[in-house]
């Protein structure tokens, strides 16, 4: 095939950071109008590949890359984002590159403002030219119209819905006259479902104009919906490049993970409707965005209880309320005795441990070592791992080290040692550190919120397996809140669906999809079954 046919080619591209190879022998070729998906787990090398393509400083500060990048058959050497833009590469970033106090127009034209001369610019040079808002607005309007966006171009970006922000970014890219290749880096991660499907439609429209699209994601269903060609990366290597027609979602997933995906097998024989370990009555939690309103729920000893439901319905609020992290009313009885609410210390004393959904914000001391993260709550709340010297206390380093090593081994935390900073760990291993800390408190009840959020597919499974293993071996009661229903259904004994702040009903993992769907949509069902 003649090379000119391709808009963008990457040949034998590789990259290593300080001797660690993170990308090797990548081949990629895009034709005009093609949507080419690049899929892979976190850490598969997708971001590095895009950083190379976009000339990010992180690449060139660490010795550049191997291989060749060709645009329309000509080799280019891109060493800065500016050059990438000039070469016709546009990028929609995972995090928005927008300035909130600017209008949509100003954001679309950021650093590409249309200028006109004035007296001063003739004397002091082009930097003193004034901005030509009329023409800028016109251009912005055109770009927005291409995307079927009917929002006014002079509206400020601050306060716009996320979807509109994303479209503003896209409008900025398509406004660039020489745009040839457009990169979408995990564009749907922050979008609601309807917004995501709008985005996919927009991508197809842009591709229809002869622009090649590189679509980076790990949502396979979206890939199957819009992509023409799919490239799978795993551990920095190219695993396969296939036209969509010749593959399917299961094969993609297998190629991506490299091991068979299966549901975690659990003994589902005995549903323990025995002793009630926690009885929640009339629970109201004022958690912004996740309001709980007079919720009743009984938790049985030794079970894994799932709490599911749509975002914003209040499922996240339940665990946060029990831990006393947000203003709470109602009553919670643990082992028959009432729990004092709005008091995290009391909740911990009653042997409840919590894995927050905000792992990096609330859950971990990111710049402290693994061992300190594991023991800090126990030190603070149970006076363990410390030595007393009269009125003074000292951290008992040897006891901590011993305990940390044991935990690292038991939970299989992949790290360089107990001294490693938690920030450096991958999401899955950070979550294991959280689990280790919770276990250090010797809890009877473990509240787990969104344990697999932001963790790649392989590690998700390990985290879930760890939870199941704990439950089986120690008999600990686990209340797991998750947005991913499939995940709940693979590990839980019972699943409570929270809708509009209360329990809409409790389902078994093997109940039909229709039951789940109806209940999440707010159709009440009788408890039990």
């Amino acid at each position, binding site marked *: 095939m003649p090379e000119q046919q391709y808009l963008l080619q990457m040949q034998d591209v590789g990259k290593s950071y300080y001797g660690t190879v993170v990308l090797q022998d990548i081949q990629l070729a895009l034709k005009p109008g093609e949507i080419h998906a690049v899929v892979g787990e976190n850490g598969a090398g997708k971001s590095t590949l895009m950083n190379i393509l976009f000339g990010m400083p992180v690449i060139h500060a660490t010795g550049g890359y191997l291989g060749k990048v060709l645009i329309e058959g000509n080799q280019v050497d891109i060493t800065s*984002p500016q050059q990438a833009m000039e070469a016709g590469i546009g990028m929609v970033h995972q995090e928005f590159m927008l300035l909130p106090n600017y209008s949509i127009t100003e954001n679309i034209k950021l650093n590409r403002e249309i200028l006109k001369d004035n007296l001063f610019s003739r004397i002091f040079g082009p930097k003193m030219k004034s901005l030509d808002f009329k023409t800028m607005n016109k251009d912005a309007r055109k770009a927005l119209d291409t995307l079927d966006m009917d929002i006014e171009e002079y509206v400020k970006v601050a306060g716009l819905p996320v979807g509109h922000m994303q479209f503003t970014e896209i409008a900025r890219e398509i406004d660039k006259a020489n745009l040839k290749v457009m990169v979408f880096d995990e564009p749907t991660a922050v979008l609601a479902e309807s917004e995501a499907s709008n985005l996919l439609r927009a991508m197809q429209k842009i591709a229809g104009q002869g622009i090649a699209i590189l679509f980076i994601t790990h949502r396979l269903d979206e890939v199957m919906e819009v992509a023409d060609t799919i490239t799978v990366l795993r551990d920095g290597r190219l695993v396969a490049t296939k036209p969509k027609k010749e593959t399917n979602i299961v094969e993609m997933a297998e190629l991506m993970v490299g091991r068979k995906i299966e549901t975690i097998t659990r003994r589902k024989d005995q549903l323990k409707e025995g002793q009630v370990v926690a009885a929640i009555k009339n629970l109201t939690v004022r958690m912004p965005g996740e309001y709980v309103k007079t919720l009743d729920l009984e938790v049985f000893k030794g079970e894994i209880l799932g709490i599911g439901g749509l975002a914003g319905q209040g499922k996240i609020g339940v665990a946060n309320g029990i831990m006393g992290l947000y203003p709470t009313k109602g009553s919670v009885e643990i082992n028959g005795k009432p729990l004092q609410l709005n008091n995290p210390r009391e909740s911990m004393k009653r042997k409840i441990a919590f894995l927050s959904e905000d792992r990096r914000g609330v859950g971990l001391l990111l710049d402290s070592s693994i061992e300190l993260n594991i023991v800090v709550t126990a030190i603070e709340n149970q006076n363990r791992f410390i030595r007393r010297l009269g009125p003074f206390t000292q951290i008992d380093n040897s006891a901590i080290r011993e305990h940390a090593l044991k935990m690292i081994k038991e939970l299989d935390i992949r790290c360089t040692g107990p001294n490693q900073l938690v920030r450096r760990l991958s999401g899955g291993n950070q979550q294991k550190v959280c689990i280790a800390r919770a276990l250090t408190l010797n809890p009877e009840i473990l509240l787990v919120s969104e344990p697999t959020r932001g963790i790649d597919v392989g590690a998700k499974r390990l985290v879930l397996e760890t939870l199941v293993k704990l439950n089986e071996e120690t008999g600990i009661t686990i209340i797991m809140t998750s947005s991913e229903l499939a995940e709940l259904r693979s590990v839980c004994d019972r699943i409570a669906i929270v809708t509009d702040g209360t329990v809409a009903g409790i389902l078994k993992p093997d109940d039909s999809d229709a039951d789940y769907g109806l209940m999440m949509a707010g159709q009440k069902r009788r408890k039990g079954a």
Partner: protein
Amino acid sequence: MSSETVEKVAQKPGGKFKQALIGFLTAHMVTIMFVLLSLLALYLSGMNATLYLNDIISRVSRNSFLVLALIIPVVAGMGLNFAIVLGAMAAQAVIIFVTHWGVGGFAGILLSMALVTPLGIFLGYLTGKLLNRTKGQEMITGLILGFFAAGIYWFIFLQLVGGFIPMDNEVLVLSSGVGIRTTVDLSGGLRYGLDDVWRLSLPVVMLLFGAIFASIQGFSYLKSERQGESKSRFYYGIVIALAAAAGGIFLIGSGSLINNITVPAGTWIAIGLLCLFINFFTRTKMGQDMRSVGQDRHVAAVSGIPVDKIRIIAIIMSTVLAGWGHIIFLQNMGAFSTYGSYEQIGFYAIAAILIGGATVTKATIGQALLGVFLFHTLFIVAPAAGRETFGDAQIGEYFRVFVAYGVIGLTLAMHAWKVRLQSQQKLGR
């Protein structure tokens, strides 16, 4: 059921108004507090209008240019530029030499401004380089840099001048022959060099200002390009301008004492030009780049804006403007303390702009001018109020110093608090 809904509808506008009022009050807390304080002190002092007006005009014209020099770094996201002290030191250094050479009047002012420019560019460049290495801590760095630079300044003017740098001048140099005297007198030299270029009586200025401002507002109303911008402010502007003009005509006719108050029109023209320049500048490519950098360095960098360079330019502009502003300040004062005058400049200018309602991230021309006006009003009336109320002017003096520094601390703390609240809200989402 229906009565409830009726009640709700009836309550809503009132509730909204209340909310808007509370929002307005919290947003302009410092400014409102100052207006109230000034009014109270003005009432207690029993000062007459002519005296007050005379004083405030001279003080506002003296200080405005300096305070306006603070705006550009705020736009570029570098916070309040405590390092304008360096510009002030440069200005004093230049003035000492210009006085030594015996160049006075308007020519002396022009020469000083011309000489302070390259010096300001050099110092601004160094400051910018330093601040680029301490991103996020510009204010504390600038503050300490001011103290550090004072040491060098002292060394030059206490030890080098008269010795290493020859200066044979009995008036300026200490009797030992080395080092500059603690006070430099500008009378007969640069004093009123700019002020006296053109003096007009206050009512005439009001009339002229009213006419010019009204036509500017009318013109920009017709030319307003940014869509979605509220046009009501143009109406307010025109109304205020016409009121000023009418007041001017009335005063000229009335033959009141106020006709004796003169306004240093030359200085005011310089201030006006600076306002126009800032206004124009923020709408240029460079100004837009600064605003982009000010909002988010990372986003600006990714869009290809040379962030560090833009920040250095912002500080250079601020330093040079501060140098010019200090020259204007000193020519009005007529004398300065060689080893002290520059020091208060930074604090007082920053206090003034904060009182006007500016924050670390947002400052406008209007806030700067309003702030200068309020700050100096309190400066004028507080001692008199102290004397009238407590029989001791010193108490008013203490109070205003307390207020000036208190405002800086309070505003910075409030800003930090607001930023923290906002980041918490982000997490909650």
